[in-house]
């Protein structure tokens, strides 16, 4: 980034969207679970497992679509597994989530080794990737083209899912029930809602989103699976959901902020400051944003 002109800013935008996509997808998953009162700490593990499943199944079938579906199914299945631990075994929600993350890290590595003889990555598998989309007319327009066209299909999916999840939560009967269950399960029970069924559904849906986030890593960003490739994004997604105050658009803006901070820290590597300090940027920016936001909210409340 030698010159900060408009052009270089615009080329920056696809990077932001790429970095944001997995956080946003996983963040929406966290959102659904937390609104149902079962905060999914296991997104990290579900993401990793989704990334793995996508690669393996697409390599086995030669179909990116099937691989992607497998990522969703595996994410969802792990959501069901977490729900089994929480609802049937009545284990601690947080601890079960942590355990799921541990199990996913160990399990994917073990399976990878059994399939390929390599614990590091799946380079020997000819897995498929999901495409990027060029939008015919838009692509030609100078600035707008860069902004809106040429992104990965899951980037579009993630941003389109924002109104989807928002409408689901706020405007559909299921969303209403889900929110009621999350806020006051006894009341929901009294209203004749099967609380457990709603929470199971929420965890499965949450897992599906996490699976999609994982697929973006292994079938979008790169075309292989590598050990622990989710690299903590699940936890960043948790942060995004909390920062977004439990709404889909809020989660989107928080994810974008986190994405911008990360993309900025990447771009700033060139300026020659110690790399360690540049790497703190994506973590300090959200804290600062959180405080600024909280202060403003406090002031508004005080004035009201």
């Amino acid at each position: 980034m030698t010159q900060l002109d408009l052009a270089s800013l615009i080329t920056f935008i696809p990077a932001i969207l790429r970095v944001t996509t997995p956080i946003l997808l996983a963040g929406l998953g966290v959102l659904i679970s937390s609104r149902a009162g079962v905060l999914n700490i296991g997104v990290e593990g579900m993401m990793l497992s989704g990334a793995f499943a996508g690669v393996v199944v697409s390599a086995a079938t030669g179909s990116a679509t099937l691989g992607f579906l497998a990522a969703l199914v595996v994410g969802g299945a792990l959501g069901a597994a977490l729900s089994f631990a929480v609802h049937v075994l009545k284990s601690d929600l947080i601890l079960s989530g942590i355990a799921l993350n541990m199990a996913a890290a160990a399990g994917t590595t073990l399976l990878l080794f059994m399939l390929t003889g390599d614990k590091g990555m799946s380079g020997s598998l000819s897995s498929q990737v999901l495409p990027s989309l060029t939008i015919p007319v838009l692509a030609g327009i100078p600035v707008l083209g860069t902004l809106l066209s040429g992104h990965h299909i899951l980037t579009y999916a993630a941003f389109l899912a924002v109104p989807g999840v928002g409408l689901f939560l706020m405007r559909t009967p299921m969303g209403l029930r889900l929110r009621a269950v999350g806020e006051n399960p006894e009341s929901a029970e009294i209203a004749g809602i099967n609380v457990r069924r709603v929470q199971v559904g929420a965890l499965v849906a949450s897992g599906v989103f996490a699976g999609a986030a994982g697929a973006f890593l292994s079938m979008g960003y790169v075309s292989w699976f590598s050990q622990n490739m989710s690299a903590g994004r699940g936890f960043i997604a948790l942060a995004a959901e909390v920062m977004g105050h439990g709404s889909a658009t809020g989660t989107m803006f928080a994810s974008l902020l986190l994405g911008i901070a990360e993309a900025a820290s990447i771009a700033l590597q060139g300026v020659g400051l110690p790399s360690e300090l540049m790497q703190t940027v994506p973590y300090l920016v959200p804290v600062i944003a959180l405080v600024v936001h909280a202060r403003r909210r406090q002031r508004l409340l005080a004035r009201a």
Partner: protein
Amino acid sequence: MIRSAFASFVITAVLLVLVVGIVLVPIAMSLPDPLAVLDTFVFGPFRNPRHTGNIIEMATPAMMCGLAVAVMFRAGMFNLGVEGAFFLGGLATVATVLLVPLPAFAMAPVGILVGAIVGSSVCVVPGYLRARYEASELVSSLMLNFAALFIGLFVVNYFLRDPAAGAMVSYKIPNDAKLPKLIAGTRIHLGTLIALAACGLGAVYLFMTRAGFEARIVGSNPSFAAHLGLPIRSILLRSQVIGGLIAAGAGGIEMLGLYQRFSWQSLPGNGWTGVVVAILARDNPILLIPAALFLSYLQVGGDLIARNFDVPSEAVGLIQALVLIVVTAQAIMRNPRLLRFVAGSKPATNAAKETKAVEGGVA
């Protein structure tokens, strides 16, 4: 009461055998000597004093991090800064003993103290932001953990790095600064006693002092605390300071107890262990001790089989994950029928007694 505690213990033990069996037996069966694998996992840690020592060494930071988590959770703060505080505490301790000229006897105590103070910031800052601005401590502590990591790496790179070393590590910790070993043939060091004492003091603090009582009131019902006129913000902050000091002090103790130099290049994970231990111990400082020992025992047993047989280390990770879920499974641990079966008594009669007691109180 005691009988039911014993019953839960028996159930835990049986369950563990089951879980380990489910994962381990198929693997063991594929090896030449399946029984030896199981035997090593279960009894191995006690056959060699060094291995038993490993359990205790490993439990030491787990207890302290668990205590830090418990103290903060009890005050109602979901502060995950223990991970970063442990890291930064270890670093600041090493930096102090390396950079500050100190007489030999003062190195360890001053080092750990400075480490505790510096490292605690990772817990205190989120605590302050929450108390002052109501900013989510979950998010800020999660983020500051990583910020602490990279700031720490920066400090190592620019101030502590031993250029003669082939890695990004500090100069060697002077021998005078190291914590004395307690038992020959093991690495058990003074830190273990400190950790045990800390858990004891933690229990005293939470359950026997005014300050701890106030923290628990705030944690269990902030509105009640406000009703009583307790200074909620300063109580919250005080809890985070205590938690942060314990976590960061644990990092310093770990460094001076077991390490030759500061050589962490990523977060060491003890904070997460602390969360797990605290949940297992239901935030009770005394129960932290068996909880930490238990987790470490599983870990050492797992390491032993991974080391001595062709059991992949990932299989050990899977076992540990399953164990975590199972030992907190209320459906199993609190199952009345199971408890009755194990304890051999009928709760129905207990219930009758209890009901009478309640009614007796009426007259």
